[in-house]
């Protein structure tokens, strides 16, 4: 479990992630999640451009200065910091674009990859907000709480992911 190792067992990492439910439930009184932070940050940016955005209840609820909203923004920012530190400690440096994309997209063009990534991010968060959760909120937390709606969302997520990866991407 050394911080200088390039890879840990997926089971060890999974246990570490699962244990994070303890501080989430005990200290913040919520479950692990990631996708609502996109509404908080995106909503604040939108409100700068269009002041009427903060008049929409859904956006107003997410940009309110509450502990839960900002805890999740901090969590996602922390993920970036943790991954950066972990990468520097192990020396597992990455290229600008993973080598798998040239094969998956059938093109080595960075512009094409950036365009696909932007559209993918858009679809991913639009879908996550419709479902009211993502891989973390529905997947990790909802399933562990035996929430029936979350299990349906996770099944749909894998179905959509598998169908897209098989039909729209080439074999990596």
């Amino acid at each position, binding site marked *: 479990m050394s911080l200088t190792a390039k890879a*840990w067992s997926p089971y060890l990492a999974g246990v570490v992630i699962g244990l994070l439910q303890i501080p989430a439930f005990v200290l913040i009184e919520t479950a692990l999640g990631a996708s609502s932070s996109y509404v908080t940050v995106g*909503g604040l940016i939108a409100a700068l451009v269009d002041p009427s955005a903060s008049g929409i209840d859904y956006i107003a609820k997410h940009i309110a200065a509450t502990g839960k909203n900002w*805890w999740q923004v901090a969590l996602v920012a922390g993920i970036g910091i943790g991954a950066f530190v972990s990468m520097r400690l192990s020396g597992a440096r990455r290229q600008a674009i993973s080598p*798998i994309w040239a094969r998956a997209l059938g093109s080595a063009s960075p512009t094409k990859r950036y365009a696909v990534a932007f559209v993918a991010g858009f679809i991913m968060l639009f879908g996550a907000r419709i479902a009211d959760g993502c891989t973390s909120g529905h997947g990790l937390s909802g399933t562990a709480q035996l929430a029936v709606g979350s299990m349906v969302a996770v099944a749909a997520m894998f179905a959509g992911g598998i169908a897209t990866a098989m039909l729209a991407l080439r074999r990596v």
Partner: protein
Amino acid sequence: MSVTFAIIVGIAMGVVFGVALEKSRVFEPGIIVGQMQLRNFIMLKVFLTAVATGAVVLAALHGFGVVKLYPKAALYYADVVGGLLLGAGIALAGACPGTTAAQIGAGYRDAIFTLFGGLAGAVAYGYAEPMLSKTLLASGGKIILSDLVGIPYWTGALALAAIIVAVLVALERARPWRDELGDDVDGDLAPPSRARRATIVPAE
């Protein structure tokens, strides 16, 4: 709970989360796309282990009355439509909303575009929500599987964890995790010759 306290706890938890995502390599596009093409199972291994661990932890915390549960309401139509879109986005991004941040931290530049696309998608949903909430998002109850079966939550959670452990033991026997990392720990299992062929046009 003050906002400052919440932010400090969030960053500390996020750093641990980010280290675990980076060390498990589950944040790699090669691992995530590989999972969706059913060629690499590291994502499922990390995911199911985290679910089982969370279930055991919550069985104890809830069973002893330390915490309440926070399940999301079951909105089946929204869960299916949203889940399908989320999955399609994950496959094309090679990331999910949380691992996008890990990709940026680890140095993947395309993940910055995923992040901005995600922010735009979340805002677009915010504008559409007043309209969607009347149709797609009919209100639903917070339904828990153990309540449907008629057993206490902790019993159901431990049963789920036991089933997951059995699945993981079988999965690991069939697909050892070390064989799924790839030479550069990015889930790229293609032999170099095949990778070269994809980027260099062969001469006649």
